């Protein structure tokens, strides 16, 4: 344990340049995916819903860069629009999880007592439900569609974030600086916002990227069983599901959306790693 102040260069841990690499690679992949999704709003090479039976099951060529599917739809166009749908579902679902889960976790950790018990037991209840079953229930009640998929995935993100927040917050509440804030007369909410939340950020960011990737996978799973986005709206999961029967005939139809999912998840995880380091002033390069 050194008693000297950590100066800018010497204080950085060995291998401190690592986040540069993972941040850059992860950021680049994510950026490309987001850009592709955004471009699909205004332009795709073909209409992703346009069926052209004579052109079906083409391998990648000059006209159809990623080939065509069983109905002759352009694979690249579907992938681009699918990126938008898959990411939107995952993003909103994570947003629902953070937006409701984090405040609930903070509340439970800050107030303790019966409120804590109620919040956490309800969380347990949601956790105890099989995710897919609830998704099927919701879609059975409200009908299949992207919005209901978001709802189903989002609900399962709430207890994840609530538990994580509460657990980490509980240990932060015992810190001396929280005690100092209480001596300064600050209330539960103010301390939660000023002292607890900022110190949870790194944990939350990492969890958010994990949940985002899980969200993409969950959307794929729901679409696979036919409960996600409905035809003709494309999504990565549905593309995978459709290619299932053709896997021997046209393996690229499964590989392309699969690769897109893997790449996006990888990019997000790398970026989360980098972000965690970037958000921590202890690991940040000193500005002096």
């Amino acid at each position, binding site marked *: *344990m*050194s*008693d*000297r*102040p*950590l*100066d800018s260069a010497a*204080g950085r841990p*060995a291998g401190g340049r690592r986040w540069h690499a993972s941040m850059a690679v992860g950021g680049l992949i994510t950026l490309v995916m987001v850009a592709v999704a955004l471009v699909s709003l205004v332009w795709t090479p073909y209409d992703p819903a346009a069926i052209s039976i004579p052109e079906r099951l083409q391998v990648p060529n000059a006209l159809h860069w990623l080939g065509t599917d069983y109905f002759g739809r352009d694979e690249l166009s579907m992938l681009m629009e699918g990126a938008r749908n898959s990411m939107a579902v995952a993003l909103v679902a994570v947003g629902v999880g953070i937006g409701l889960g984090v405040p609930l976790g903070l509340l439970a950790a800050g107030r303790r007592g019966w409120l804590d018990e109620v919040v956490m037991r309800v969380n347990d209840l949601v956790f105890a439900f099989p995710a897919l079953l609830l998704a099927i229930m919701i879609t059975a009640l409200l009908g299949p569609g992207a919005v209901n998929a978001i709802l189903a995935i989002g609900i399962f993100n709430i207890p994840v974030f609530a538990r994580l927040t509460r657990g980490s917050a509980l240990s932060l509440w015992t*810190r*001396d*600086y929280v*005690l*100092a*804030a*209480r*001596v*300064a*007369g*600050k209330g539960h909410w*103010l301390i939660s916002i*000023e*002292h607890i939340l*900022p*110190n949870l950020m790194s944990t939350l960011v990492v969890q958010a990227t994990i949940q985002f990737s899980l969200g993409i996978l969950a959307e794929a799973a729901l679409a696979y069983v036919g409960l996600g986005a409905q035809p003709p709206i494309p999504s990565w999961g549905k593309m995978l599901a459709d290619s299932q029967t053709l896997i021997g005939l046209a393996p690229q139809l499964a590989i392309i959306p699969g690769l897109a999912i893997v790449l996006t998840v990888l990019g997000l995880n790398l970026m989360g790693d980098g972000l965690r380091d970037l958000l*921590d*002033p*202890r690991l940040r390069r*000193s500005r*002096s």
Partner: protein
Amino acid sequence: MTLLSISGLNLSISGTPILKDIALDVEAGEIVGLIGESGSGKSMTALSIMHLMPTGSVKTGSITLDGVELVGKHDRQMCLIRGIDIGMIFQEPMTALNPLMTIGDQVAETVRMHKKVGHEEAFRIARDALERVELPIDRFPLSLYPHELSGGQRQRVGIAMAIALRPRLLIADEPTTALDVTTQAQILDLLRRLVEEDQMGLLLITHDLAVVAGLAHRIAIMRRGEMVEHGETGDVFRHLRHPYTRALFEASRHQPVRLAPEIEPDAVPVLDVRGVVRDYAKSRKSLFGPRQYFRAVNEVSFVIHKGENVGLVGESGCGKSTLSRAILALEAIQSGHIHIEGEPVGTGKGASLAARRKMQIVFQDPYGSFNPRHRVERLITEPFHLLGSDAPAGRDRDRRIAEALDNVGLLASDANKYIHEFSGGQRQRIAIARALIIHPALIVLDEAVSALDVSIRAQILDLLADLSDRLQLSYLFISHDLTVVRSITDRVLVMKAGKIVEEGETEALFQNPQHPYTQQLIAAAPHLERALAARDIMGDRNA
């Protein structure tokens, strides 16, 4: 032959030199004290002997145990030496034991790991070892779990594990730092007895000169990875040849200069505590049985006048922290009342804003006292929250920040830095700045210098004394360290099991303690001058 002989030991971790040319001998039956401040490399020296250094370490030089070279030995060979030939005792008795294993299993496990003996035989050895560390089998059966023991008893189990196989060398890294003074004295006695009985060599690593002065045959002093002095204990203390040794010695018995406070007994006291009681509800034994209560603070009354420094001493669990939290309105009290300059701190929900504005606290751990995400400027202005809309803003706020930082000997430009850019001592100064910024009447110092190295501690004590004189501040100085309390306080309260058992002027109380508990505390506390007097060193020095 020399039991342990280290020569020319160099250690570097990923290219950074940590130890430079260390030379140290330990004979059988000898206690060698290894002293240094944090970062001096004393623990790293011990880990080098055990070959337990962090990954990326490069070790050169020679370490021999009974003539057998240890440097360059393979990890697997070292495993055979650790535990059998070298035993080790750690600082933290709370974490050194596995909470899920009984004490018998833990001691027997170390035996079976190193010796091919049956279950019965291992337990017989474990039983012997526990007897030897004064945990008699009829009162401490092998089936006890660590949580059923006190800190001192756990440390005894740790010692039993280290000595079960009768190693020739025992390494103790701050074995008593986490313990209360009376327990510390008992553990040190035990170590001394075991060394004599087994003719072991003991390498005792500590930051506390007073501990080694009374115990070690020889001492070695380390600083920044180098050994600055090494010799027979009496000799080292008698001559204090090296300037660093002298500096350490002076810092250990440092006495900050203070003016005697002018106390006006008729004025409203800064802190007035009357008959305060704090009960904790225990968990129910049976569903319908009455709730049991544990009385942490029992009918405590005292006052602190303006400019007065009052010490509160007692061993862990005596209620001193609970009392301080009650004063700061962090805990509700069940009866009695607390007034700060006449403002009630309320028995019900928290304190009035007026009362809170008059008190602040400084904690023990300089590393945990600050939110690492905020800049110093935001950290130390946190108490401004108490002023609500009256809080200074703009240039006025900057002036207050600069004033507070200046008061604790830091620069105004430090306000823009993050807390990790400061050392432990500097952080404690920032903690004091945070307490000062709102101009309180009372600062509660909860073990505020206990985690600091002696030289830094001396500086912080000087700072506190100076602030108290200049700003007419009152302190409630909570500590288990009697030497520190004696050096800075005007009056002392001795607390035991929730009650204040003795109260008096500091010097008078230390010279002539009345209550048996106070006498016991003072007798048990390691005391540098007393230890040296016993060795007849002070006499020589003063002559």
